């Protein structure tokens, strides 16, 4: 398991990722599949761009009135016979769930996929209390076997290839025949299903996340493609929903609007295969469902973001489109980011939640290409927010001394045009002379950061401004 958070070692993580052939092979799938599917499904829906505007406005409205909607939501949950637990920190959130499990005599917990449960370190907390947490999403199940963290917020095992999964199943499922055929994705899925079925039935508690919490009805909504979430929340006696406070939407109608952009942006599906709404525990007339229904509402740093320059990040509906379209994510994968949330959304959210002193590399490791913002279903200005983190780092003197010194020197000249022209004029002529007609440098003192990857094109000679002055003088002489 990655030591959490390893974000301070981002550069080291990235180097290891770039040298990992299996990982690079797996990342090739992100680069092609997700992007093509999203583009196709967006093209088929003429009002897709208008829906994105509507989704953005809806999320902004919720964030502006979050207190009102959270309280309304709580009332509805209580009315439907459920319980609501408000928690400030990750530790508090895990403790509440562990205590719930202990007091119900639980020995195992079936989990649907939930990034907030990663954020609060729930599995480790349960294990420490002697309670087995079983991940039931196929991707989550695979990485749990491998002792890894998710590398993507909707495709947790996207860093693995099929042969990696086959090897893992053969290593762990030793009770199954050695000569079984696992060459197809379907056979891997069937094996995971069979193994998980018994675990669903044995689980005392089901824990799921929530894509949306509906204030109007007190309903939690999850979307999945495997149906594991349904089993996790219906079969056990107790269903615990763990969700961060910004997941609220006012009405079912609003949830439907967001669902229209969520799956399209995430996987390129019009809808996920399963969209499951849960309201309270089993009622007298219900044929199944949990006897108890709990919601753990996690703040863990979100309320500090409200009203700050990072508030727009709370619009996020966790589709993963930003990382699917990010050239840096494509190059290094999710684990390099070193904490729960990778890619552009992680580069903004992680410093908010664990501190920019630990996660400072993340908002810097971006080319600002803007492709993330161009696909974000709720139009979060991700590059702008990353830049705000760079401003905070600059103000707090957290950026590296060498780059600060270089920037200071550059700015000194850039603010003095005459001196700048004199200094750059000399430098460029010297460099052009040094290149001696070769047109490029393969190495150059102080430029190794550039030349360790590529040649540095040499300057042509005199600067444009020097030549322009001469050119204008010559023009004036002409009759």
């Amino acid at each position, binding site marked *: 398991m990655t030591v959490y958070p390893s974000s301070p070692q981002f550069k080291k993580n990235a180097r290891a990722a770039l040298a990992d052939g299996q990982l690079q092979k797996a990342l090739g799938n992100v680069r092609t599949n997700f992007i093509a599917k999203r583009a196709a499904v967006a093209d088929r829906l003429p009002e897709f761009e208008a829906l994105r505007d509507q989704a953005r406005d809806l999320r902004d409205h919720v964030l502006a009135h979050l207190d009102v909607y959270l309280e309304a939501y709580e009332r509805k949950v209580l009315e439907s016979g459920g319980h609501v637990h408000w928690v400030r920190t990750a530790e508090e959130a895990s403790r509440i769930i562990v205590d719930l499990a202990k007091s119900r005599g639980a020995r195992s917990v079936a989990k649907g996929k939930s990034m907030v449960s990663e954020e609060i370190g729930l599995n480790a907390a349960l294990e420490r209390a002697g309670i087995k947490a079983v991940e039931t999403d196929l991707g989550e199940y695979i990485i749990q076997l491998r002792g890894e963290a998710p590398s993507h917020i909707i495709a947790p095992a996207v860093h693995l290839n099929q042969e990696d999964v086959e090897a893992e199943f053969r290593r762990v499922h030793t009770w199954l025949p050695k000569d079984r055929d696992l060459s197809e994705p379907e056979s891997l899925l069937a094996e995971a299903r069979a193994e998980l079925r018994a675990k669903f039935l044995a689980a005392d508690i089901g824990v799921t996340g929530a894509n949306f919490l509906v204030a109007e009805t007190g309903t939690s909504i999850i979307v999945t493609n495997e149906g594991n979430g349904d089993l996790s929340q219906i079969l056990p006696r107790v269903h615990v929903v763990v969700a961060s406070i910004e997941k609220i939407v006012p009405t079912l109608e609003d949830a439907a609007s967001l669902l229209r952009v969520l799956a399209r942006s995430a996987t390129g599906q019009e809808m996920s295969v399963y969209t499951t709404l849960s309201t309270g525990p089993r009622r007298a007339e219900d044929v199944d469902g949990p006897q108890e229904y709990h919601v753990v509402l996690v703040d863990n740093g979100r309320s500090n973001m409200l009203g700050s320059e990072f508030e727009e990040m709370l619009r996020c509906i966790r589709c993963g489109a930003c990382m699917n379209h990010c050239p840096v994510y494509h190059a290094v994968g999710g684990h390099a980011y070193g904490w729960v949330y990778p890619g552009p959304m992680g580069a903004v959210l992680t410093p908010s939640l664990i501190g920019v002193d630990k996660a400072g590399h993340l908002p810097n490791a971006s080319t600002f290409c803007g492709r993330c913002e161009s696909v974000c279903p709720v139009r979060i200005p991700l590059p702008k927010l990353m830049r705000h983190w760079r401003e905070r780092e600059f103000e707090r003197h957290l950026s590296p001394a060498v780059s600060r010194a270089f920037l200071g020197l550059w700015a000194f000249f850039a*603010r003095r045009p005459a001196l700048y022209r004199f200094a750059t004029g000399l430098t460029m002529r010297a460099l052009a002379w040094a290149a001696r007609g070769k047109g490029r440098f393969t190495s150059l003192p102080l430029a190794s950061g550039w030349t*360790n990857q590529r040649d540095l094109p040499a300057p042509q000679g005199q600067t444009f401004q020097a030549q322009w002055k001469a050119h204008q003088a010559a023009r004036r002489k002409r009759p």
Partner: protein
Amino acid sequence: MSDNNKAGPEIRVGLLVTCLVDLFRPGIGFAAVKLLEDAGCVVSVPSQTCCGQPAFNSGDRANARAIAVQVMDAFANVDYVVAPSGSCGGMLARHYPELFEDDPALSARSRAFAAKTHELVSFLVDVLGVQSVQAAFPYAVAYHDSCSGLRELNVRDQPRTLLASVAGLQLREMKDSDVCCGFGGAFAVKYSDISGAIVSSKTACVEASGAHTLLAGDLGCLMNMAGKLARDGSKIEVRHVAEVLAGMTDAPPIAAAAPEKA
């Protein structure tokens, strides 16, 4: 060449030549001047250093603001500010207003300044109505859509429109032409191995296109891609799109050696 502006009032254009063009490849600046003059503009080159983007993207707002004011002062007396770069153009047209949004004294001024700023090729096509150029370049070319131009200023069809009018030129669209080349300013140096991986993917697409020459509208991206192609021993030539549109392709391509004298 369009001549529909020749009868109207004088169009005064200030050329923001950009620091990279000023220092590394002045020929692009002269190509820009030729294209603008051919389209009927009166071009001036106010005293300049840089647009301030390195400071802005490093979180140094104070220096970014100071340089922005310097640029706005220098270009106060022109009708349009035009840059042969989507990145520097985007800095002026999109980010100057952000820099001053809380500054009552400069907010309106920065917005007005942004409104008169354009990237070179989109200015020719969208503002001046230029639909063709008098130039010849008998080669297959691939065009890379630089990120800032594409996503901040909607530069996509304009260069293709003008390239289609270049005699002999054949445009070979490459896969992922709209994907970042991995330059990202200081990113290329600070995270050089990630940048190296990204530019490798890009040059693989360039090679696969079968193009003779790679074009783009931003010298930063071009230096990154040309440097990588040169490092890998590729024969593909690299130029700024303005050089081809202006018919000014006598200088050796970016990162290429001067031809041996006969």
